[in-house]
């Protein structure tokens, strides 16, 4: 098992190198001149050239690349031009924010969509099946910024049951001491239940917004997968052996239906992590998506490169995690292979 993980990690190195090269080239090909952008609209040509030299942009591409690699090797992702902050530090605080949001959204989606999908599969054509389909269609057809605004409007403005939907934590709370960067976990580690509750209260609306969006594919996949498994021969064997309904449904059917569900989960997760910009914007969530969008708009290379690199690493880890899960669920998937 450990050998397989190490081998897979080694196998990912060429991919990472490729990502480094491609992002470097792509960011250089972006439209817009960062030197001009930062010099400001009233700057003279000399001033712009001076800034260009400062940024190292007057050197040849290969030269720039070597400089970039050198910095990368020393763990330096450069500084953001617009904020002046080191990119690494920004990503370190923003990636956990996005991770926390996405994970919670996925957990919410899982605990609703999977049982509903199973229920729909055991009673195809029933009212519960139709209800599930309706819910799923609604969830996926409403844009996330709309559901987000709606939830914020109803829960904060109308009902007043949730705190002001801005950021990860109400201003009256200090952020918990950073261990993982996930506020829920960190506040638990610090045994600070009040901060935990406050962080959870901030998290619930954006997480629900994401969850609603993800429910549809997850529910549909669960239903289809369960239907397929329930009509297979070995389920008939299990029933003919007199096993109880729950045993047949969970130990026999559900475990077999899990593989495609896990695949969907992995896909949805990697998709969401970098692309829930709209949700982050609506809830002023200091996530990585909104960070990179701002950087892109101002032709700020370093954060974009840092972002793409981080995402590539996250995907490698995620795929590894999914493969390990496959191996645990299905003995036919050779762990060593």
């Amino acid at each position, binding site marked *: 098992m450990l050998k397989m993980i190490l081998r897979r990690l080694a196998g990912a190195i060429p991919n990472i190198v490729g990502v480094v090269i491609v992002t470097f080239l792509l960011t250089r090909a972006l439209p817009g001149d960062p030197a001009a952008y930062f010099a400001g609209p009233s700057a003279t040509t000399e001033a712009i050239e001076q800034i260009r030299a400062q940024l190292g942009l007057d050197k040849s591409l290969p030269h720039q690349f070597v400089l970039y690699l050198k910095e990368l090797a020393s763990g330096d992702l450069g500084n953001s031009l617009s904020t002046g902050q080191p990119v690494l530090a920004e990503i370190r605080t923003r990636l956990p924010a996005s991770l926390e949001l996405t994970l919670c959204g996925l957990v919410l989606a899982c605990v609703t969509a999977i049982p509903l999908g199973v229920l729909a599969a055991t009673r*195809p054509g029933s009212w519960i099946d139709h209800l599930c389909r309706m819910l799923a269609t609604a969830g996926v057809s409403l844009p996330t910024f709309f559901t987000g605004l709606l939830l914020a409007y109803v829960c904060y403005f109308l009902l007043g049951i949730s705190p002001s939907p801005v950021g990860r934590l109400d201003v009256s709370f200090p952020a918990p001491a950073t261990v993982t960067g996930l506020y829920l976990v960190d506040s638990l580690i610090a045994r600070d239940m009040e901060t935990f509750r406050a962080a959870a209260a901030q998290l619930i609306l954006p997480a629900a917004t994401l969850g609603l969006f993800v429910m549809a594919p997850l529910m549909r996949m669960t239903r289809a997968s369960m239907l397929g498994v329930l*009509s*297979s*021969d*070995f389920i*008939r*064997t*299990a*029933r*003919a*052996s*007199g*096993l*109880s*309904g729950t*045993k047949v449904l969970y*130990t*026999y059917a559900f*475990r*077999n239906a899990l593989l495609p569900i896990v695949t969907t989960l992995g896909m949805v997760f990697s998709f969401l992590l970098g692309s829930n910009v709209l949700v982050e914007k609506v809830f002023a969530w200091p996530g990585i998506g909104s960070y990179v969008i701002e950087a892109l708009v101002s032709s700020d290379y370093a954060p974009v490169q840092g972002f793409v690199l981080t995402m590539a690493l996250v995907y490698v880890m995620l795929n590894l995690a999914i493969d390990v899960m496959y191996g645990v*669920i*299905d*003995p*036919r998937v050779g762990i060593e292979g």
Partner: protein
Amino acid sequence: MNAEAPLLSVKDYSLEFRTRSGTVHALEDVSIEVARGETVGIVGESGSGKSVLSFGILRILDAAADVRAGAISFAGMDMLAAKESALQQVRGREIAMIFQNPRTALNPIRKIGRQIEDVLRTHTSTLQADLKKKAIECLAQVRITDPERRYSAYPFELSGGQCQRVMIALALACNPSLLIADEPTTGLDVTTQAAIMELVSELARERSMATILITHDLALASEYCDRIVVMHAGHVVESAPTARLFERPRHPYTARLIASTPSPEVEIDSLASIPGNLPDLRRNDLPKCRFHARCDRAVAQCTVGPLPEATFEPGHRVRCFNPLAYTAP
């Protein structure tokens, strides 16, 4: 148990499937009886409803199935009125089943030993600590080599024949009084087929267990069965003791089946195939006799009136308008 009270009796059982493309009249007025310890063969070509009948007996049909009429009683229990919880007690403990395709009939991601344990745990009071030992015993009984090691094998690591042995171990784990073997040897090579059949019949004899052997191979049925029931397109057309059926088949379809069965005395070339196919069971105007269109003894009256049932001798029943006649010897 006296002759009047069979272990299993299916009476005038009719069953339909509601599908998008219409109603499938899968079984009509099916009656069969199985006495304790007896081996009964159900023979018929593909699609004649053999599997559906066995699923109907165990009540494991899918939701599209609709029982229209009939009664099924097993050891005095009304199977059609029984509640699901009562049925679960019967399945696997009193009536067990072996399936057509051993490879897909086992859970692919559960160790075979665990699958046997699941059945033991459901039906017996075996202690948790003894379950593994008992499961290995079950595997040993079906003569799987090295049962201790096989206990933790997954179905994909076994050959088709071994999977079928595991299936048999699973079915016989709780000593059922009736075993339904649905084409237990299809998809296996000839030597394995013979070995599996020997195993089943030997274990059945040992435990004086009644067996329903479902097959489309009349020769196979004649070798192992006391009695044979011939099915065609959802009807039981003839049932008789094995020797009797081969000696004096009364239904034209049975006669055809016998003529098309290879045996040492018959040359391969002289084997007659049966013309035509099963009628489409989705038709709503199915003729009373569903063999009518393929039959060379059809007479005008075959399409009108209810299908008659004639008893030629105790235990030899035929459903035909124009059965074969034999002159007294």
